[in-house]
């Protein structure tokens, strides 16, 4: 089943690359760049998890992101997972909205993020790490964890800056179950830069201007009444984005756990296609 999921993800990636804007290379961190108004981005993002114990898993999410206005971006995520020697299936959905708070570029550009998630305990996309999330969350058998309902609200304060071709972004995350406190906290930090700042006159596919390198650092910060780094998990993840032709971007990011409570590693892959929904 794991192999089937892998193959289907690769086929989807190929289809998207044939259809063909260079996006941010980040998988976890958000910056202040919004979806262009009227544009729809379709992305498939498989995440390969390597836990310290238990079975390897591939989680994946289909992302449909729409630029409602220049300052408001909305997105729907459909999550699924496949765990080796266990089972595969749909694990839930997420509705996300991002609101840019200032209408002009400033030294620091704040964006407010609000997400509602209705997922089950087998969801393993790890799109953000909060509270005391750790490797033990991944070893619970899917047959049991899928019965656990998680209806969550998640908020982020996104701060982002562009300087001399570099992007610097920081996210402060607060998340809680709708009917079960406490608030859990997390963070994500990232920086990125294209390999070449100016464009060349000729069309090119694998040239430096189309490649962006970045680095992400993210993890949990404990919970309400117990904000701490102790027993939390943290990850460091270099990332690369390759802008292909006609609006397709390929992103890859291997990430490694930095603390004893972290998973050993994640490998994230993303293929996105962006185009105008309405002419």
């Amino acid at each position, binding site marked *: 089943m794991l192999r089937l999921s892998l193959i289907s993800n690769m086929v989807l990636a190929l289809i998207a690359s044939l259809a063909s*804007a260079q996006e941010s290379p980040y998988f976890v961190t958000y910056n202040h760049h919004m979806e262009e108004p009227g544009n729809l981005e379709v992305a498939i993002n498989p995440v390969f998890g390597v836990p310290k114990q238990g079975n390897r898993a591939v989680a994946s999410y289909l992302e449909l992101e729409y*630029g409602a*206005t220049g*300052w408001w971006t909305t997105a729907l995520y459909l999550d699924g997972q496949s765990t080796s020697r266990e089972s595969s299936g749909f694990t839930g959905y997420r509705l996300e909205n991002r609101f840019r708070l200032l209408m002009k570029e400033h030294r620091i550009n704040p964006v407010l993020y609000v997400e509602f998630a209705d997922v089950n305990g087998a969801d393993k996309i790890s799109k953000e790490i909060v509270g005391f999330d750790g490797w033990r969350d991944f070893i619970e058998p899917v047959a049991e964890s899928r019965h656990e309902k998680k209806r969550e609200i998640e908020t982020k304060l996104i701060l982002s800056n562009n300087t001399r071709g570099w992007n610097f972004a920081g996210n402060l995350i607060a998340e809680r179950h709708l009917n079960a406190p406490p608030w859990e906290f997390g963070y994500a930090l990232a920086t990125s830069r*294209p390999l070449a700042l*100016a464009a060349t*006159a*000729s069309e090119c596919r694998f040239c430096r201007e189309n490649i962006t390198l970045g680095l992400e650092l993210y993890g949990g910060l404990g919970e309400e009444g117990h904000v701490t780094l102790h027993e939390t998990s943290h990850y460091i993840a270099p990332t690369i984005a390759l802008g292909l032709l006609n609006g397709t971007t390929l992103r890859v990011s291997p990430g490694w756990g930095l603390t004893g409570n972290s998973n050993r590693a994640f490998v994230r892959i993303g293929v996105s296609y962006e185009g105008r929904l309405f002419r």
Partner: protein
Amino acid sequence: MKRAALLLLILASTCRTAQQSNPYTGQTEAVMAGAKLYRAHCASCHGAAAEGHETAPSLKTPRVHDRSDTALFSFLTNGDLKGGMPSWSRLPDERRWQIVAYLRSL
């Protein structure tokens, strides 16, 4: 003292304006690169020949041509988020100047 400070302020603002002039003025390669960037990022709204669409205006009008390079660069950077024009700050400064060079060539 006040006059000296004022002079310094004017000088500083002049220097800033000078730094903001298009570094690609008169460079054919930059115009071609700007055309490529235009096709990738702008043509879907403003049209392949910058003639405009229902959703976005023509870029071949005096309203655009009468603006300074700096004003065009600033507009590309900030956009008009309430009016539907996105911010292109995601593109490095160099690429936005290349787009300005292309717009000047229209």
